């Protein structure tokens, strides 16, 4: 049992030595206590009011009041949070507990915490407690009791004593006689709590503040506990194990008002505020606005919100895939250009990187969208390149082919690639005939796939005016539309990210050992061969983690598509929130979507990283 003692002699000598420093210290301490008191009363007061509100159940015409939570549920929620923190602070539950479960002393405290929560729950469920006084006392007092017992740190000894008394009752009296002093404070705290809880009304008649102003009572108790334990802890600085537990318990004690406030506030909001209605039923109803997407057009009048969400996800994934591919290619080109001996191209690379790395993405996207929108010809001009590709400020129309044929031709190319890899299974054939035969295979395969693609003809977009007299009734038939926002978001993301990728490429190439490049030169490789066979394979090792980060940034930056009015998942969900105001479930959905995307990108890049770093350097 620790009691704080005040050293009067030492205090006097301290004051005599340096009065100004003592005054400064004292002022600082008084200020801290004042701020602490303000914080405690503020949050405890709000928690107390909310606790009274959610314990009260006024039944009108058979319906419970809206904000009523049965006391058992309250105990489970808040007690559960306290139990989690309890277990974290005790730090006993480690993963090797299953190896020797017989050593109960190591994890007895956590078990006692669970048992304590069970007892609280049983009390709450079965005993009739008055909702305005005893229910808040149970919750707030129980939380404070948990913190108090934690910082006393006697629960371990108490639990072991109890278990030993139960195991061999004959020796229990001696055991208790020996060590009653160590556990007396915790036992008395528990007993005091239970007594006051049951007799709250009686005690409240004598000391009204206990039942009416519980927030102030508990604030005072918290303050006293904190200060006394701070005084003790400052003398205990040489026992690290105890110090750690006390620090965590002190942090827990100080954050009790905040935890209570957040728990009660969120419990209240879940019942009263419609934006906090966490259920995704509204996603099954009809969305009622229009978006553009491909391949599966959502029906404006029949599509549910889940369909729209899924269409948004597909839109975002398309943009991200194309942007990642393009930005890597451009980034590698610019990065290598920046490092070349050719003065002009290194200047060009430097200017490109310096200009686009420091520009905000929103600004870049907006500038691109406005410029593209204003420089492309209007529909009226009927501007087309060789009568096949139609350019207008409402979209670019290219000739479309049958998607099935597209799929078949890509499948053919994939099969040819697999076939060439099978041919190279014993090693890359670098001889003249090998290169020539591979060249022939690929030329033949490309010609065949193009032939398949165009076998059924292609659909050239044609533009005509439906009603010649009225303005603006242009109609484009056939063809495949690439909308302007799509082009803008891809251009913006690509330009922005390629500058960063160029820097990453430059950094990783410069960190290569110079000997590798000199060996490549001495072997007689041309610069391009050096790049392809020596530099890039080794630079990939250091590039891949940084590129992983940048690809996740591309995925997250695609949420800026709302700047160019591109219908990606964020934009669609934002429109849903603006329409029906169910903010919390919609944003949970958005966060989950972005987290899944980041995890997928990270997993793929980690697989590639393992492939690239297979050889230990």
């Amino acid at each position: 049992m620790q009691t704080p003692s005040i050293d009067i002699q030492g205090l006097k000598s301290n004051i005599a030595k340096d009065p100004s420093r003592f005054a400064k210290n004292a002022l600082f301490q008084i200020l801290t206590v004042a701020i602490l008191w303000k914080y405690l009363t503020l949050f405890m007061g709000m928690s107390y009011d909310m606790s009274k509100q959610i314990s009260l159940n006024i039944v009108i015409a058979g319906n419970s009041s809206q904000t009523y939570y049965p006391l058992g549920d309250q105990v489970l929620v808040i007690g559960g949070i306290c139990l989690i923190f309890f277990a974290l602070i005790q730090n006993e539950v480690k993963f090797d507990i299953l190896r020797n479960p017989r050593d109960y002393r190591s994890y007895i405290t956590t078990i006692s915490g669970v048992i304590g929560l069970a007892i609280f729950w049983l009390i709450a469920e079965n005993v009739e407690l008055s909702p305005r006084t005893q229910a808040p006392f149970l919750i707030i007092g129980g939380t404070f009791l948990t913190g108090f017992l934690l910082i006393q740190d006697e629960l371990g000894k108490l639990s072991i004593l109890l278990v030993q008394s139960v195991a061999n009752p004959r020796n229990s009296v001696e055991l208790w006689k020996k060590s009653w002093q160590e556990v007396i404070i915790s036992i008395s705290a528990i007993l005091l709590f239970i007594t006051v809880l049951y007799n709250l009304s009686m005690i409240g008649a004598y000391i009204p503040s206990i039942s009416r102003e519980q927030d102030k009572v508990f604030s005072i108790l918290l303050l006293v506990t904190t200060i006394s334990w701070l005084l003790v802890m400052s003398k205990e600085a040489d026992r690290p194990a105890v110090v750690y537990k006390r620090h965590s318990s002190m942090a827990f004690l100080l954050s009790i008002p905040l935890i209570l406030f957040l728990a009660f506030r969120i419990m209240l909001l879940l019942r009263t505020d419609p934006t906090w209605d966490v259920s995704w039923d509204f996603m099954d109803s009809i969305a009622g606005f229009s978006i553009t997407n491909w391949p599966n057009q959502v029906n404006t009048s029949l599509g549910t919100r889940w369909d729209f969400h899924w269409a948004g996800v597909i839109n975002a994934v398309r943009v991200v895939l194309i942007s990642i591919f393009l930005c890597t290619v451009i980034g590698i080109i610019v990065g290598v250009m920046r490092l070349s001996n050719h003065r002009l191209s290194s200047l060009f690379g430097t200017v490109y990187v310096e200009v686009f790395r420091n520009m905000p993405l929103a600004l870049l996207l907006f500038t691109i969208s406005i410029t593209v929108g204003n420089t492309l010809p209007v529909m009226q001009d009927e501007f087309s390149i060789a009568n096949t590709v139609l350019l207008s400020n409402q979209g670019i129309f290219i000739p479309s082919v049958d998607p099935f044929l597209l799929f078949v031709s890509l499948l053919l190319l994939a099969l040819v690639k697999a076939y060439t890899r099978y041919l190279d299974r014993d090693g890359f054939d670098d001889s003249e005939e090998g290169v020539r035969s591979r060249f022939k295979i690929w030329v033949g395969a490309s010609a065949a796939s193009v032939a398949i693609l165009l076998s059924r003809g292609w659909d050239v977009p044609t533009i005509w005016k439906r009603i010649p007299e009225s303005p603006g009734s242009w109609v484009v038939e056939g063809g495949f539309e690439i909308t302007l926002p799509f082009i803008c978001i891809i251009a913006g993301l690509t330009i922005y990210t390629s500058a960063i990728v160029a820097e990453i490429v430059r950094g990783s190439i410069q960190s290569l050992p110079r000997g590798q490049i000199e060996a490549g030169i001495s072997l007689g490789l041309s610069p391009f061969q050096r790049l392809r066979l020596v530099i890039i394979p080794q630079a990939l090792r250091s590039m891949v983690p940084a590129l992983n980060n940048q690809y996740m940034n591309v995925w997250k930056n695609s949420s800026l598509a709302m700047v160019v009015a591109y219908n990606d998942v964020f934009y669609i969900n934002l429109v849903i929130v603006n329409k029906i105001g169910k903010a919390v479930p919609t944003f949970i959905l958005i966060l989950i979507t972005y987290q899944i995307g980041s995890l997928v990108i990270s997993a793929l890049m980690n697989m590639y990283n393992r492939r690239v770093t297979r050889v230990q350097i």
Partner: protein
Amino acid sequence: MISDMPQTSPVMRALKWYAGFDEGITGKPAKWVNDSNEHLFSSSVILLSLLLAINTYFTEMDSLYLEVSQWKNVLYCLITAFLAFFAWSTTLSVIFKGTFTQSKSAPILGLIVAWAMYFIVSGVSYFVIVGAEWEVIWANRATLFLGIEINTGVVNPDFENQTWRLWPSLILTTIIICSAIGTTSETNRGFAVKFGLIWAACIFYVWYPVRLNYNPDGVMQNLTLTALLGAVAFLLSRRYTEKSEEFLVNKLRSYLAVSAVFTFFIAIALLDPPDALVERGYAEKGIEPFLWGGLYVNLILIAASLVLGSALSVLLAFGRRSELPFFSWPSTIIIEFIRSGPMVAWLFIALFILPDVIRPFYDADVVVRTIMTFSIFGACYIAEVLRGGLQNVPRGQIEAAVALGLSPTQVKLFVELPAAVRTTLPAIVSIFIGLWKDTTLVYLLGVLDVFAISKILPATDFQFGDDYLEPLIFAATFFWVVALVLSRISLKVEKSLGLVKEGGAEAT
């Protein structure tokens, strides 16, 4: 014959230099070029390109049809002619000197880049010099910096001029920055040149008489006063640095940092005094944060996020690395949760959901909530970087500190943190630059920062309807300048800390 030619003739040396320069761009010349006839090739290339460039000059001059002032036309045509000279000389030297016989890639690369430069740079300079109408910027020069609320006081005499809220902050900031520069190894002349240029640019911007809709005298006086005070602060701190030992200079730097934090709070208090003071009559009613606008709201956002984010990131980084699961689990959960979403999502969550949670005890304005969001977001990213740096602190340092009797807090603050910040400074600065660029996103919440204003400027006046690009380019230039300055400062700090390794891959 070659020994007869005077080697030191300036023309010959110029031609030799040109030949070397050309080789860097177009590659090695073919075999029919040797030392004796090299100057013939170079001089013929130069003469022909000059003729073609002069031809381009006159062609461009004839094709300009816009009624702009003469000097702008001349400037644009000169630039185009110079670029044409460069492009043509590259082409001709490739043809005459036959560099394509020696290597395939160099001449192609040189040609592509030279002609790309011709088209891109002449197009950009056409836009900047001739095609653009910068009137929209001159007419709204105050709005872009001050936001719409304060700007009405500046240009409209019926409204109160509230720029007095911003001048003290500017003066204090200038004094602090100049004193900080004085403690570094910047030379007097270097500082004078840069500072003088900045001051001259500001005076020109405020004074330029085209479309002047306010009285610039007061502004110019205040700017000059600021410049004088900044120069005095620089000289004083330079004197102090030269005379004193390093620990005193470090003390001065820490005092400057603390006073910077105070300046920030003074700036906020001037703009929007707390209600307690307004009710008692000590201060006038301020501008509510939602109405702040222009460039200074971006600066306030990034300054607040910098300070708060750094503090929070230290807590999160140490929390995540702690052995106690009570600190490590919540820190890990917070960091991973916040890093999973894009910035826009968190901004909208701060707009829609956060007020419900904190309204009982603090009715926060949009700008305050944005500052909170930026701080937490930046803190999580910096905490990740800092965690990597903390892992690389040599274990012996920590053990030595513990053996010396330092408490755990002192070990963390005085041993681990400085070492970690030293090694991870480039990554942290790049995160800050990213955060600075993200402050433009506040327009989505309705705050009219410089990006939002530059978007709506074309719609404010009938004559500016076409000039949609000029304000955007102005805003982009300003963001670009600040980001560049930040990265140059970080390079300088890295050099002074001895951290520069040529070719470290930065985060962004």
